[in-house]
């Protein structure tokens, strides 16, 4: 049963994606519904897997192949947690797309890629083999490439290419590390090499891939540029799924499965801290609304990485909670930005202002999400931030803790600036509220952000079980 659930979570969106163009030719509504159903199936299956995973009764599929290339899927609590996080936000994003994307050409491809992307994400989180992981990793790169270039204008295409080249290069370098592991251990199977202590050069090489995917300085440059994509796509890539892949890989490889040298407990946090501060600074100056949010993503991802990498077990919990909170809130922010962009046909914040009067729902949702990202209670981001910094400090990294707080202050500054420029002040442009579906999506995310804070016990319980912590 649990194995079937896991397979369904992976295969339904992954294979279903290819049905979408077939249906899309005939009935667009059915196609849209199918896309949503595929993603929801993945979500549902992952949720149903949770009890098994929590009870340490993990679903495991292992098919032997020669050369250590086994096909292995393993739904442990961490995987299930990541799957739920990403599909939760993804479902909302797919819903939002119904409103956002409906007037553009190439919708078949759009939904195909979205579903494929989510399917790949599912495959990635559940896979227990490095090559499988790499495979799904590349599929997500490919999908993001198509999705970023959705509008087909020259800038979009060049940026899409840039994102693809950068992430694929990172992944290739990571693959060197995987092969290094293979050369040392003779297998790609994570369950076999669990507990193996990695040589430092392999860690460094794999880190390049991870940092590229999760857009950490200095490998982040593709991410702000990818803002040319449609907003649901940016939301999916920058908030919900793509950037989280790197973090997931970090946790999976370096925290849960394999051991790394102590020195990385200093190096990675330092990189993360630099990344966090630099991108926060860049966010303060950006005038493009999506760029602000994108830089904010880089900064927040760095915070998460900080939490994950400081070497304390509970830091993992904080980091995971942060991942959840950030997915929801940042997804919401991008979607709100999408509504604004849709209404005003510009992304330049200097041309916006006073939109709270014409689009109150968007504004309030955006505010909720922004507050969550800032880490202000009762929104979800608060506890995540609190736990992460708690863990950083309890790992004895006081300086990093201070940097974290400076970064958090900058987060407040740039998000406050963004919010006031876009929604407050004098009304500069005529605008209209988004469609009902779009509003519903952002409301869902905003409310989720709120409830994640108020009902923090649920996610923390989940995270606790994921980390196997007491």
């Amino acid at each position, binding site marked *: 049963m649990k194995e079937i659930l896991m397979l369904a979570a992976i295969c339904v969106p992954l294979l279903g994606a290819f049905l979408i163009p077939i249906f899309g030719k005939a009935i667009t509504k059915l196609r849209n519904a199918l896309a949503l159903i595929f993603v929801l199936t993945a979500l549902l299956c992952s949720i149903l897997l949770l009890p098994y995973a929590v009870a340490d009764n993990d679903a495991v599929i292992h098919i032997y192949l020669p*050369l250590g290339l086994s096909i292995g899927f393993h739904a442990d609590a961490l995987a299930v947690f990541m799957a739920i996080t990403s599909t939760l936000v993804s479902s909302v994003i797919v819903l939002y797309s119904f409103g956002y994307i409906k007037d553009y050409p190439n919708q078949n491809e759009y939904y195909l890629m979205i579903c494929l992307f989510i399917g790949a994400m599912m495959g990635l989180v559940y896979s227990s083999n490095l090559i499988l992981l790499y495979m799904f990793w590349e599929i997500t790169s490919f999908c993001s490439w198509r999705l970023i270039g959705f509008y087909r204008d*020259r800038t979009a295409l060049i940026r899409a290419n840039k994102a693809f080249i950068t992430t694929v290069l990172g992944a290739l370098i990571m693959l060197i590390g995987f092969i290094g592991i293979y050369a040392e251990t003779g297998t790609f199977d994570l369950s076999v090499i669990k507990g193996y202590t990695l040589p430092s050069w392999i860690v460094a090489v794999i880190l390049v891939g991870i940092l590229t995917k999760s857009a950490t300085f200095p490998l982040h440059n593709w991410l702000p540029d990818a803002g040319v994509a449609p907003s649901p796509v940016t939301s999916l890539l920058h908030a919900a799924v793509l950037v989280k892949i790197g973090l997931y890989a970090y946790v999976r490889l370096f925290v849960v499965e394999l051991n790394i040298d102590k020195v990385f407990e200093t190096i990675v946090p330092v990189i993360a801290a630099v990344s966090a501060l630099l991108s926060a600074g860049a966010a303060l100056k950006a005038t493009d609304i999506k760029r602000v949010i994108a830089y904010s993503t880089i900064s927040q991802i760095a915070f998460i990485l900080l939490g994950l990498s400081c070497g304390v077990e509970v830091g993992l919990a904080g980091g995971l909670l942060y991942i959840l909170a950030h997915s929801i809130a940042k997804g919401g922010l991008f979607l709100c930005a999408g509504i604004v962009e849709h209404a005003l046909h510009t992304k330049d914040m200097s041309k916006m202002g006073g939109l709270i009067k014409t689009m109150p729902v968007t504004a309030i949702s955006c505010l909720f999400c922004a507050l969550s990202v800032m880490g202000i209670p009762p929104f979800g981001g608060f506890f995540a931030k609190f736990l992460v910094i708690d863990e950083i400090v309890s790992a004895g990294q006081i300086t990093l803790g201070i940097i974290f707080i400076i970064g958090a202050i900058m987060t407040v500054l740039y998000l406050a600036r963004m919010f006031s420029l876009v929604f407050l002040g004098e009304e500069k442009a005529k605008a209209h509220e988004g469609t009902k579906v779009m509003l519903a999506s952002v409301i869902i995310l905003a409310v989720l952000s709120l409830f994640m804070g108020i009902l923090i016990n649920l996610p923390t319980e989940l995270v606790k079980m994921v980390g196997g912590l007491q």
Partner: protein
Amino acid sequence: MRALQYVSMLFVIIPLTALIVCSLIKRSRQNAAFYLLSAFAAAQVGLALYGLMLFNSLNISEYSFGFHITQAVADVFTLKPASLVMLLCIGLVSFTSLLVAYKTMPANKKLSYLRLLSALIIGMNGIVLVNDLFTMYLFIEIIGISSFVLISTTKTEEGLESAFIYLVMSSLASIMLLTGLAFIFMRTGSLKFEYLIAINNTSAEVSQNALTYLSYILVISGLLIKTGAVPFHSWLPDAHQSADTSVSVLLSGIVIKAAGVYCLMRVTDIFGNLYAIRLSLAILGVITIAVGAMFALHQNHFKRILAYSSVSQMGYMLLGISAGGILGFIGTMLHIFNHAVFKSTLFTNAAALHEEVHTLDIDKLGGLQKQMPITATTSLIAFLSTAGIPPLSGFWSKLLIIIALWKANFIGFAAAALVLSIFTAAYFLRLQMNVFWGQTPEHLQSIKEVKGTIRFAEIMLTIITIAVGLGFPFILLFLEASGII
């Protein structure tokens, strides 16, 4: 065993029959010859697969045969699983080329095309079957001459010029090969593979000798010219670009591999997997990957990009050979097959574009995805496979090659090969962006999707690419079951 005997003989008889039929047939009946040759090519694919199954069930590693009129006749041909894979590729690519030529080849040139193609197939089949270096050289010459004429069939100035360059380079290769073989013959007195392998293993006096090394260098250089490895590659792009697309399919899809890579593989094996040879191949392989890709980044002609891409991909095969070992061997064979498939797809796409848009200058194309969805999708998949994006076929062969390199302690080369494959992605992204992606210019709005054989070829090859990619686990299991790994 008997079945195997017939099958193996058929590999010689089929193209010979084709050649004879094509030489005798009248121009007015050329279509019949076309169908016949297509059927033969398809039959070769089937036979090769059947042969592989036979090998598996008989559990043998090679089978020698000859055409016995008297009993004294030696077995001049040897069939191996690797040869069968090559024969499969030959059949497949020839079939594709025929499908493409059906549309692209002008009617007055079809017959010559068919004749030369059958000669070419004989040459290639011969190369993969022979067990003697001199015979191998002869068949290389057949390939050389027939491809030279095939390239120059367009009879444009560029076509002839590039054919001339090919001829010159090709004769340089012949000279080197012949000189090298002469030296070897001088030292050993025979050019039989078995004999050479045996003498390499037993007699240090023969194998460790300046003249022997010189001969090795000459033979390898000659074969590298045939392969189109950098810096011996200069004939290749011109030839690919100016030839008819159906010919490009052949050249890129199989000729450079049969006459180059496959022979190199055999020769390296025969020369005792000398470290110096492997190192030279590895170094040249990395250079080839890098330089080919860097050239490809600058090209504006669809087929020229593909040609340089082929150069670049040859580098991986060279690396595979240099890695040696069973994994390197399997990786190289698989890459040969995969490359044959996806490069043929891409050239077929080129043919489709040429048929519909009448230009292959990528600056004049754009946004054709909507107008030519099948061509666009197939080219995309072929590109992904070339760039080594899993789970498509290209990834697995590259992976095997790189693992093999790693195991052979060529770690730096492995890493370089991996990282350099980003260039593959780069030039293909440029290609995709300029041709299929992006916005459609006004004058291309009315373009229609290509029909008929070319479309069929595109779809067929793409399915193979995907199937091999997804079915790779089965290939692995099959290999393990037959005790190869």
